[in-house]
């Protein structure tokens, strides 16, 4: 796997505020990295250092081998960047704006027209191409920002909260776009929305108070959740207590909870010790006691539990 982005001990201090504190990670071609953290964790500041908008206090950021501080031009040429809030010139039309950005990137004439066409098609902007950006809805404005970022088909995409403030359909569209483009690019997407991670990310870096607290695949993180491999099952209400006592006798079970009761059927949740596999044991045990299980499901684990545990006290 080709490494496209590399951050090494990146640090930024604003006066007394340590916004980013020794952040290191790298992103390979084809990888979508979810950059997670509560508000004020330092996501935007990290991205701003990577894209050359903010100079690091210390540490380095490289894009395709080019140091952003030493060779800003070469690094910036290889990045498509959607800043937080998708700023754009309100007095321009999407077409005029993309022309401006394209020409600033040295693309002209027919080639520029072709690329604008591609970017418009991918982001669905054709219908508003000539309207002033300030008259467009938030969703369209976000798309203008995305179109601008992908215009030059950059090997590295940096998207700061690309779905923030969008409605569910728009969020879905943006995620689809990110997925489509991920094949030959390295993409970093910041978010504080956890569902995003499952939807688009191959890898997750969680940051809290400027420091990385986790760098793993989403499944690995889910595995750290206390509910990973927990068994959720439903039994007749009359036998619920009996079933719970039985399950508690298993030494692979840490805890059994009674969650809800609907139409005389109780839902139980059995939490494993160290993520042990409980499903077979529980069903055999209850079968042996003649307790009928209506439904049984093994939980993958909840990212938000993990997220909360890792970032607790970190939100501003």
């Amino acid at each position: 796997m080709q490494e496209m982005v590399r951050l090494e001990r990146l640090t930024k201090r604003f006066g007394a505020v340590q916004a980013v504190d020794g952040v290191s990670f790298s992103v390979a071609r084809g990888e979508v990295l979810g950059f997670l953290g509560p508000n004020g964790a330092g996501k935007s500041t990290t991205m701003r250092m990577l894209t050359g908008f903010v100079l690091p206090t210390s540490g380095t950021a490289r894009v395709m081998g080019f140091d952003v501080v030493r060779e800003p031009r070469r690094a910036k040429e290889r990045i498509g960047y959607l800043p937080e809030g998708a700023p754009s010139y309100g007095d321009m039309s999407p077409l005029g704006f993309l022309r401006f950005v394209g020409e600033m990137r040295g693309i002209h004439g027919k080639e520029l027209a072709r690329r604008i066409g591609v970017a418009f098609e991918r982001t669905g902007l054709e219908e508003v191409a000539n309207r002033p950006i300030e008259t467009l809805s938030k969703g369209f404005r976000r798309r203008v920002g995305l179109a601008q970022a992908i215009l030059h088909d950059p090997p590295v995409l940096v998207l700061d909260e690309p779905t923030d403030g969008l409605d569910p359909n728009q969020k879905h569209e943006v995620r689809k776009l990110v997925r489509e483009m991920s094949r030959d690019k390295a993409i970093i997407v910041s978010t504080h929305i956890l569902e995003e991670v499952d939807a688009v990310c191959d890898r997750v870096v969680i940051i809290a108070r400027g420091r990385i607290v986790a760098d793993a695949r989403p499944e690995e993180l889910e595995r750290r959740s206390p509910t990973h491999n927990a068994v959720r099952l439903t039994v007749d209400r009359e036998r619920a207590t009996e079933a719970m006592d039985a399950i508690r006798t298993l030494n692979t079970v840490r805890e059994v909870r009674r969650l809800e009761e609907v139409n005389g059927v109780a839902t139980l949740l059995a939490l494993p010790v160290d993520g042990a596999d409980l499903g077979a044991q529980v069903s055999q045990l209850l079968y042996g006691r003649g307790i009928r299980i209506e439904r049984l499901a093994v939980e993958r684990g909840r990212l938000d539990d993990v997220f909360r545990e890792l970032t607790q006290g970190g939100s501003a």
Partner: protein
Amino acid sequence: MDIVRTVVRRELAAYFTTPLAYVFIVIFLALAGAFAFFLGGFFERGQADLESFFVFHPWLYLFLVPAVAMRLWAEERRTGTIELLMTLPASTFQIVLGKFLAAWIFTGIALALTFPFWLTVNYLGEPDNGVILAAYLGSWAIAGAFIAIGACASALTKNQVIAFVLGAAICFLFLMSGVDLVLAAFRGWAPDWFVDLVASFSLITHFNELAKGVINAATAVYLATLVGVCLLVNTLIVDLEKAR
């Protein structure tokens, strides 16, 4: 050069998409006319020249030009587009230069629209059009110096009103530095060469020559240096903001 031209085109377009540009031009033309006729005695002088028209330009520029320059950087900062601009593969100086040129061209357009004055004196008499052309260039150069100063002020803040006040104040100092009142403040303690230096910064002294159509090398060098230094300071201000 491509990048500078792209920036110029965008900035110029930005001026003309708001009614503010037209308001500015109308105010400039109205005031330039009113000053020339009522204060300068354009007709009463009985002379076929435009001196009475040009002498008031620095005073007009004093508050009109900072108004043109105030949005250059402050607006980008306020709306966050600066983040987009500064992450494009362009050098800060190219962007600084492009913005300066756009604003300067804009004031040039406003100035060019005063051509009816020139037509009038040519209709009424036989002026020295070489002198008039030189005075126009001189006036435009002063506007350029003020733009460069105003752009620096704009780069310091995201508030356009502050950018305007700061820009106008600095322009005022440069305009007035030859006046005795200002020089007196230095005379007590500074060496003579320093007082002379401050006096030589005075845009009004330089401009009075320009208005007569006299372009001398010292004035040209001074104005070019002033603009150059301001552009470098502007670049520095923008770059330092990144390292904050």
